[in-house]
């Protein structure tokens, strides 16, 4: 395959390493060191895509991040697909497969283009707001067709096989951009011994040094870059990150760097030494100082048909020639408003191809590069600009005319010049994006015709982004900033000796953005501002005409800057056009706010390794392996994996739960209660603290006793509950709900630290320290008796709500006689390392009692039979203790106004018709009501109808022999015996009787045996 545009010599490609690749199904060859874009240009591929709205053929415009057109679908296999890859930033590798994202059936013969050229005139900005409204019923159909046209690339149909990760970095000086200013800054800072990170988005570091015509210390500029990089590599505290884009600049000098580690090698990350490699890594950098050396983006000129393939920005032409040895055409016309762009014509000429003319908007171009052009006898047409390109899939000619910039009109005869390539330059926009991320508004500078970064604490812009684009200035600016930044972070930086660079004399640039046409902008052939979104100068003019006068309105109405290049190429031109239409200056028109990302970042890289098992921690008890081994199904409660039920054989959940329930009520069952939050409280004011924290009183709880407590927030709503034991006079052991443990401890610390620091008390979590095993049922005592000989288990000496220390199965234990089932129950707590031993010992001895492990579902049934609440199920942040019928747990007479007390006397909390906890007994005893069913008072359903409450918990009780539920009902305590109705989605209406929430053993005889 020929590379007809490749030069025989020069460039930074490796001709000894040819690489084959496929684009739109055609095989091509490029070289190592190419980008996909340079390889396509080398092969003379003109049309790389079709535009979004008008489906116009589009070619490569730029050589970097600002490229709007060359957006391709990458990937040889389904799982490897990557949508919207910018060909100018994709390194070529052997076997690369890419295709255009738009165009049907293909980019060269595109049928949509016909529609675009005919229908385009009916699609001005905002056209969809003005139509598709009648009839209203057809909008979904219209939308379907609108959606058909949407999007660029496509999402892979398979899950991503690659992995990603994050790394946290801290440095003294972060230098973003490894062009001349960035390298000088990094070198100066690094020589001080400071921790320096230097990153650059390109495959190779050096920035403009890699395609510069200038000499540094008498040698090619790239040699100086190589020398600096070599020195940096020897410094231990320096990290150099190529292929790494600073994509987001966040508060307090936190910068995210997106490092693409394998995308230059293959579409799927190859393994290394048999181990997986991450495809991309996000460096989360906290920097003492940031040096912004992001350079500039060249602005193209806006003229008619400036989107025909063969139109490039001037700097890109130089880059392709000098860096990749690719001349993207035969005959060049350069249209410029500044000196610097003359490089394109000089490089083109020196590559042996024809420069038809340099069209310079300035009346009297003067400068070193202008003189060089003159010396080569290149025709320079002053005071003029290209006003229109001709050609369909490739430029065939240009129309050039003398223009009056101030008067915005063509001021002379139109001349047609045959050519196949147009290079343009309207000037250089500092890459201020990152600085703008922090909220700093860019500031306009008339002298450089561009916005420079606003002030950001700890950030120094250098080089092009600082308005110092000339090589000699950039080097000095960077070195000075590097030294200063190192000093500010506490290092002494020896001065860097600047290399010798000749000063290039340049004439003043002209402020040209949109080139006037002989026709008014609304009637002239399309003049593209943002080619990816097909935003034209006429579109911007129309927007301002319709009253969209803020630049944000203009952007949003036209879509300008919303492409994947985020307006890097077009935004300033668009603003200039809006300013012209509104008869304002550019700074009056304002700038738009740039947001992260600077260039798009893979979701996977941002997610890192935090998916699947690492998405959120799973917490396990010391007995988890046993539960797994015994077939438990698990329910997750606040990160904890709790056994839900233990099915035997082919048992259904219902069957297993019924069996487990019966075992507890009839003999003995065991629950792993280790997940309950446990907080150790020590200090002489522990009791007082509990008095203030809980709704009930703690002053008189004796050592060896336990008490249930309810906690409210200060709005009077229940937040948590649990049992707290008095271990010694000033020593308590608190339990909380499984999900609430951390929040309760933080809550206690909050009140102690901010409100009551005078109380002498300390808290600490001991949740993980203790494993807790609750044996429940009439045989619980007998079972425990077989494993302990130092605890008197008799009913008279170890009463309900007592706790005792002793030995269980040879292991020191605290045994709490507390019950969440209403049965005789002992909760055995041992140091978690010994839990499995005790658990197994219980099963060894428990076989004869049919000791049955049970999970949370059975626990829920059993506690609901007793009317015990679950915080978070019976409560939802809007229930007071009184709503729950738990007045018995409220210490109205406690002297200190405990947390939540005052709120209970607010008008709304005093209402008698608040929702209150009740029991429901379905009239059909077999019917288990739906949890979440709404409750109404009338059998006849009419919608809308008033609801009085809902079912919070609902089960079938094998003990009661019927279904039952807990519910909250407005004025529920006054409705005992009343029938309420529960309308279902399928039209059935269930009926239930309002009853007490305590269904079983209301007098509590069983737990007191």
């Amino acid at each position: 395959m020929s590379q007809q545009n490749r030069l025989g010599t020069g460039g930074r490609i490796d001709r000894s390493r040819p690489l084959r690749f496929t684009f739109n199904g055609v095989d091509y060859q490029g070289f190592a060191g190419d980008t996909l874009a340079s390889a396509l240009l080398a092969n003379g591929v003109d049309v790389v895509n079709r535009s979004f709205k008008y489906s116009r053929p589009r070619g490569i415009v730029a050589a970097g991040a600002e490229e709007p057109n060359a957006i391709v679908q990458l990937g040889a296999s389904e799982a490897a697909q990557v949508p919207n890859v910018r060909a100018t930033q994709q390194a070529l590798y052997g076997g690369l497969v890419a295709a255009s994202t738009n165009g049907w059936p293909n980019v060269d013969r595109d049928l949509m283009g016909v529609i675009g050229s005919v229908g385009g005139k009916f699609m001005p900005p905002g056209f969809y707001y003005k139509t598709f409204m009648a009839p209203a019923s057809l909008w979904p159909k219209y939308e379907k067709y609108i959606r058909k046209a949407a999007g660029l690339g496509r999402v892979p149909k398979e899950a991503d096989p690659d992995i990603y990760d994050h790394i946290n970095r801290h440095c003294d000086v972060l230098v973003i951009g490894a062009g001349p200013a960035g390298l000088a800054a990094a070198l100066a800072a690094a020589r001080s011994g400071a921790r320096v990170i230097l990153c650059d988005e390109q495959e190779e570091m050096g920035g403009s040094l890699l395609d510069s015509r200038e000499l540094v210390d008498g040698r090619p500029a790239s040699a100086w870059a190589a020398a600096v990089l070599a020195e940096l590599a020897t410094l231990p505290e320096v990290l150099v990150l190529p292929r790494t884009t600073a994509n987001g600049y966040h508060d307090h000098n936190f910068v995210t760097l997106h490092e693409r580690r394998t995308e230059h090698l293959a579409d799927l990350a190859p393994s290394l030494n048999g181990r997986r490699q991450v495809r991309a890594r996000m460096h989360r950098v906290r920097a003492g100082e940031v040096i912004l050396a992001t350079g500039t983006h060249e602005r193209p000129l806006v003229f008619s048909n400036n989107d025909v393939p063969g139109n490039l920005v001037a700097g890109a032409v130089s880059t392709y020639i000098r860096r990749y040895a690719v001349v993207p055409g035969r005959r060049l016309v350069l249209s410029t408003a500044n000196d610097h762009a003359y490089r394109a014509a000089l490089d083109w000429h020196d590559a042996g191809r024809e420069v038809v003319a340099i069209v310079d908007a300035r009346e009297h171009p003067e400068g070193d590069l202008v003189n060089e052009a003159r010396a080569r006898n290149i025709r320079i047409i002053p005071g003029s600009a290209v006003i229109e390109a001709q050609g369909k899939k490739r430029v065939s000619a240009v129309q050039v005319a003398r223009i009056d910039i101030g008067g915005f009109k063509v001021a002379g005869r139109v001349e047609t010049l045959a050519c196949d390539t147009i290079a343009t330059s309207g000037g250089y926009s500092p890459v201020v994006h990152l600085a703008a991320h922090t909220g700093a508004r860019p500031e306009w500078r008339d002298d450089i015709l561009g916005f420079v970064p606003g002030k950001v604490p700890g950030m120094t812009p250098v080089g092009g982004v600082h308005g110092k684009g000339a090589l000699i200035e950039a080097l000095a600016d960077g070195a000075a900033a590097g030294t200063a930044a190192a000093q500010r972070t506490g290092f002494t930086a020896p001065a860097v000796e600047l290399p010798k660079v000749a000063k290039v004399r340049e004439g003043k640039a002209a402020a040209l953005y949109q080139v006037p046409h002989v026709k008014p902008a609304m009637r002239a052939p399309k003049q593209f501002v943002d080619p990816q979104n097909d935003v034209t100068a006429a579109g911007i003019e129309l927007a301002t005409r319709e009253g969209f006068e803020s630049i944000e309105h203009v952007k949003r109405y036209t879509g300008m800057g919303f492409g994947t290049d985020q307006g890097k190429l077009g935004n300033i031109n668009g603003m200039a056009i809006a300013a012209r239409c509104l008869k304002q200056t550019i700074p009056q028109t304002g700038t738009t706010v740039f947001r992260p990302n600077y260039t798009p970042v893979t979701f996977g890289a941002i997610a890192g390794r935090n998916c699947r098992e690492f998405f959120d921690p799973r917490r396990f008890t010391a007995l988890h392996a046993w539960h797994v081994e015994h077939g438990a199904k698990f329910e997750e409660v606040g990160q904890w994996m709790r056994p839900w039920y233990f099915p035997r054989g082919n048992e259904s959940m219902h069957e297993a739960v019924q069996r487990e329930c019966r075992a507890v009520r009839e003999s003995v069952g065991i629950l792993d209660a280790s997940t309950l939050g446990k907080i150790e409280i020590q200090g002489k004011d522990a009791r007082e603290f509990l008095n203030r924290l809980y709704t009930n009183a703690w002053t008189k709880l004796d050592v060896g006793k336990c008490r249930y407590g309810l906690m409210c927030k200060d709005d009077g709503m229940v937040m948590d509950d649990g049992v707290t034991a008095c271990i010694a006079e000033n020593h308590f052991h608190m339990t909380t709900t499984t999900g609430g443990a951390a929040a309760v401890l933080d809550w206690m610390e909050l009140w102690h630290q901010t409100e009551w620091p005078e109380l002498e008390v300390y808290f600490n979590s001991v949740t993980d320290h203790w494993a807790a095993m609750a044996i429940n049922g009439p045989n619980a005592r007998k079972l425990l008796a077989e494993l302990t000989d130092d605890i008197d288990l008799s009913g008279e000496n170890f009463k309900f709500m007592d706790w005792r220390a002793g030995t269980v199965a040879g292991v020191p234990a605290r045994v709490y006689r507390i019950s969440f089932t209403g049965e005789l129950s002992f909760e055995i707590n041992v140091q978690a390392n010994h839990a499995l031993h005790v658990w197994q010992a219980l099963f060894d001895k428990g076989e004869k009692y049919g000791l049955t492990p049970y999970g949370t579902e059975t626990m829920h049934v059993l506690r609901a039979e007793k009317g015990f609440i679950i915080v978070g199920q019976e409560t939802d942040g809007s229930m007071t203790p009184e709503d729950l019928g738990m007045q018995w747990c409220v210490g109205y007479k406690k002297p200190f106004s405990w947390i939540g007390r005052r709120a209970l006397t607010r008008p709304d909390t005093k209402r008698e018709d608040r929702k209150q906890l009740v029991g429901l007994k379905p009239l059909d005893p077999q019917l288990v009501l739906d949890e979440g069913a709404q409750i109404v008072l009338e059998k006849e359903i009419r919608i809308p109808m008033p609801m009085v409450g809902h079912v919070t918990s609902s089960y079938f009780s094998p003990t009661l022999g019927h279904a039952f539920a807990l519910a909250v009902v407005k004025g529920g305590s006054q409705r005992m015996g009343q029938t309420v109705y529960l309308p279902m989605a399928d039209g059935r209406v269930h009926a239930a009787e309002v009853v007490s929430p305590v269904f079983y053993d209301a007098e509590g005889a069983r737990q007191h045996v």
Partner: protein
Amino acid sequence: MSDYAQMELNPRGAVKSESPLAMTRARVAQAASPQEARVLICEKAFLGHLVLRGNADDEAFRAGVERALGLALPLEMGPLSLDEARGISIQWMSPDEWLLIVPAGQEFAAEAALRGQLTGHYAVMNVSGGQTLLELSGPCVRELLMKCTPYDVHPRHFPVGKGVTSVFAKSSAVIRRVGEARWELVIRRSFADYLYSWILDAAEEFGVFVASGEAARSAARDAARELATEAR
């Protein structure tokens, strides 16, 4: 009756104990041999972990702690009080909180010693069953840690002998640097499986060896030293 109840929680007789990683170790395979691994992981199970609370401004409290433990109470975030020979360390956790780690089985004695020396407002809480200690060694440990914690682990910021508490993956951990390329993590029991799995996954690219038992542990340590020397 005393104001506080202290309890020996270790059994007298032979009882099989399980560290927080017992289940996880069985689940996770060793990834690399000690020779090629650049990260070595070893659990130091069953140590005594105690939380000590008290007023650092109270001279009597400080003196009492020193008498009880033979180690000075660290008064600021960072430097550990460490006696490697005796296997005892005290780490500042908060202005009024310290983590005391003692050899396996000595937690009761340590608590008793403290209670014997301290008066006034203080607290000692045994948390030995609730956490475990992981030793990480090898030339790539620092880079591994950078993937796990936002805390700056650079030697200039994290010299040998320092200990901090910070975010670790999506949980938290106590991070201590006990040698040039030797680090310790103190992690909570219920999060141990998650953190351990996370560490192995994050360390995959370096090659990771899981050492178990005392012999393997010392072999691992030797290998780590060698590698650390090479890396320099």
